[in-house]
């Protein structure tokens, strides 16, 4: 299969993910704010779970899913089980494709919902749109009425939905690990393999640019159309009343998506991972080596995450800064593969070559990749930050009394510090698990654990690989939980 066909598969799959996911996002945005506060938090956790769960782990758990299903069916004690098993085995590719599409929808929905919830309110409010609709009722022709309403819809209700759809498309179109481990065609898999196989990419002619063109068609209008309005206040929550039983029905989607993306993959490899953990623990040398490489990976990702978070926090405050942030975020919007390949090309220049495959080129690439995500997080943090409370906390921090200063520190942690800290954790997590950049630009003297695992995952499921995958995912999370728990000691001097 050539690049054009692989790109076609990705395009259709991403469009399907947007078509199926956007209505769910619009529906969740209306429902989530109406939940009781305690349930709302839980609902957001469920919603975010598919987005945060590493695709490397789900891809590994679901690899050869069609064939696994066929085998599972063959064990069912039914007269037609053997025939059914054969039927499924022969259609294993279709099973894998359906599964991939479902996983993409589950991963795109949190992105869309986040954008719709925290994007700045459109210039035409719901009320203004309603008034316009009322005014147009006098217009006799339906078609005429529709055309008159169109610009208002465009600058009103549709604007944020288009932005959400654009980002959902990009998120799905960049997908690499899931497609690769499920054995489905995608432009990312084709290009990654071509790069790894040292095929002459430039000889592919215009087709090599096809994925970039597809993304540019989304990135550029998004950037031009929505960039200027970033930083504005989001729209208030809807006020309609929805009965509780309906809300419970809505929760079913969240639970199903979380189960498919996180619960089931964990269950599928959990038992093997436990067995492998015992083997890993018995081999002290391997465990020590694994922990050392994990720590190195975390450290590099942490530096990139902290740099992007500090930079985006600075830039997001002013109009000019937001402009700069948008410009520097653009390369990251093209995804890790195109970004990595471009940097590899740039680093071949003689005067830049000494940086190639050093920690610094790797960190730089991670920074560029994480910047749009950091920017999105900053806009969300800005939207939810209680400005008055923060100001009062700042005032209290200048008190001469030590107890009050300590209380101010706690207050400021609760009002903004915690959110920034977990944003740092999230960015570190994304950077640490980034497979493509690590493969293309990872330091020559470092074994990137995600790359190592990705290579091993293609040989089937092994207990030690399962255990290492789980540890890889858990290690940075544990580090951040420990740091948060010990914040009184660790961060006292940061917020003094």
């Amino acid at each position: 299969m050539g690049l054009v066909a692989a790109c076609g598969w990705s395009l259709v799959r991403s469009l399907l993910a947007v078509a199926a996911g956007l209505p769910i996002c619009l529906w969740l945005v209306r429902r989530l704010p109406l939940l009781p506060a305690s349930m709302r938090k839980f609902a957001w956790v469920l919603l975010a779970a598919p987005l945060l769960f590493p695709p490397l782990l789900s891809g590994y758990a679901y690899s050869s899913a069609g064939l696994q299903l066929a085998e599972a069916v063959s064990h069912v004690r039914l007269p037609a089980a053997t025939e059914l098993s054969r039927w499924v085995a022969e259609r294993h590719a279709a099973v894998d494709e359906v599964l991939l599409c479902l996983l993409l929808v589950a991963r795109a929905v949190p992105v869309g919902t986040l954008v719709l919830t925290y994007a700045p309110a459109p210039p035409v409010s719901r009320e203004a749109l309603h008034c316009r609709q009322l005014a147009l009722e006098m217009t006799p022709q339906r078609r005429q009425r529709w055309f008159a309403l169109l610009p208002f819809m465009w600058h009103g209700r549709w604007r944020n939905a288009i932005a959400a759809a654009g980002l959902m498309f990009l998120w799905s179109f960049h997908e690499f690990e899931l497609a690769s481990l499920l054995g489905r065609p995608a432009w990312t898999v084709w290009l990654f393999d071509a790069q790894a196989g040292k095929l002459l990419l430039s000889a592919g002619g215009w087709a090599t640019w096809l994925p970039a063109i597809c993304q540019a068609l989304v990135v550029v209008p998004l950037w031009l159309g929505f960039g200027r309005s970033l930083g504005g206040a989001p729209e208030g929550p809807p006020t309609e009343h929805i009965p509780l039983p309906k809300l419970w029905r809505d929760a079913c989607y969240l639970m199903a998506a979380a189960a498919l993306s996180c619960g089931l993959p964990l269950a599928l490899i959990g038992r093997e991972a436990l067995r492998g953990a015992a083997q890993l623990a018995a081999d002290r040398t391997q465990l020590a080596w694994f922990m050392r490489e994990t720590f190195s990976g975390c450290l590099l990702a942490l530096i990139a995450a902290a740099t992007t978070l500090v930079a985006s926090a600075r830039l997001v405050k002013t109009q000019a800064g937001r402009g700069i942030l948008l410009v520097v975020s653009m390369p990251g919007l093209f995804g890790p593969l195109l970004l990595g390949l471009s940097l590899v090309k740039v680093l071949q220049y003689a005067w830049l070559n000494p940086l190639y495959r050093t920690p610094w080129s790797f960190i730089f690439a991670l920074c560029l990749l994480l910047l749009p995500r950091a920017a999105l997080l900053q806009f969300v943090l800005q939207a939810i930050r209680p400005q008055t409370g923060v100001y009062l906390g700042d005032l209290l921090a200048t008190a001469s009394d030590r107890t009050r200063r300590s209380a101010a520190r706690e207050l400021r942690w609760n009002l903004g510090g915690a959110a920034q800290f977990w944003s740092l954790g999230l960015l570190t997590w994304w950077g640490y698990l980034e497979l493509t950049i690590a493969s293309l630009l990872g330091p020559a003297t470092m074994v990137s654990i995600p790359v190592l695992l990705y290579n091993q995952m293609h040989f089937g499921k092994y207990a030690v690989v399962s255990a290492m995958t789980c540890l890889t995912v858990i290690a940075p999370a544990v580090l951040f939980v420990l740091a948060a728990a010990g914040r009184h000691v660790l961060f006292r001097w940061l917020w003094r």
Partner: protein
Amino acid sequence: MAGRNKGPVSLGLLALLLGAIAVVSWTFRQRDDALVVYCAHDAVFSDDVLRAFEQQTGIRVTPRYDTEATKSLGLVGLLQEEKDHPRCDVFWNNELLGTVDLAKEGLLQPYRGPGFARIPERFKDADGHWAGFAARLRVFIVNTERMAPDAALIEQRLENGDLSRAAIAKPLFGTTLTHYTLLRHFWGDEKLRAWHAGTRQRGLQEVAGNSATKDLVAAGACDFAFTDTDDYFVAKDAGKPVEIVPARVTGKTICIPNSVAIIRGTKKIDAAQKLVDFLLSEETELRLAQSAARQVPLGSIDESRLPAEVRPLAAWGREGADLRGLLVDRLAVIDWLKSESR
């Protein structure tokens, strides 16, 4: 007053960042002592060997593996790309011809140590640029619930039968590339291209790697497939109904050794030589024969220590075609397949 305290964007965080940068610089300077090994052999099997070397010698190894889908070609290409600034010290290839190609380009440093001496002439370079060890065979893996493991039946299907229930890995990479190279050598370019086109027309499934072809047969989605002996043993150990038939080209089997070479320009020549000796030793060949991959030892070895399943493979291996003179065919096959894959 309050504006002075800007939360996380503080001197403290900057100090933390600078501290982390210092730690990274220090850590990576320490790592410069490690031996960088580019390894095209499956990580699940080679990792144990490299760890054993670390334990035995105290020399730290940083392996860089190839992906399953782009086996060996990726690392050969990377070494060619890095020829002016080599980052790799030792290349452990999972086949022979890519290494022969590197030797021809002058990228390899000759070394004839004690390990080199025990490998038969057919599997090493006379000038000592590379040496082969621990081979596997190209085979047809057959699902015994679907068809009998009979070479004649498979040949018949490949010649003019329906191949919609048969599979092969992408021929541009790994051992399938060696297989195609050998076919070109014995058949010629025209016949190979006609065979390639004909098998695809009759439905032969092309998948990412040999482990994927094995999975299809093991699950019953295909009746038979081209694969390697190490992949077959993974399915066999998992209790799948599979058997093998050796793939032959004009009567000869395809026995593909791993190969090892030192990269010219390495600054860690002593450590690199130690690793080459270790890989070419009887101990490593036995370890790989006793591993899940059941690789066939090439050097002299105490046969009583070989697992029972490896002994027939060793006999097939002795019937193998000589792969050393196939570089021209390999390059022609790569050129042709690269143009096909666009």
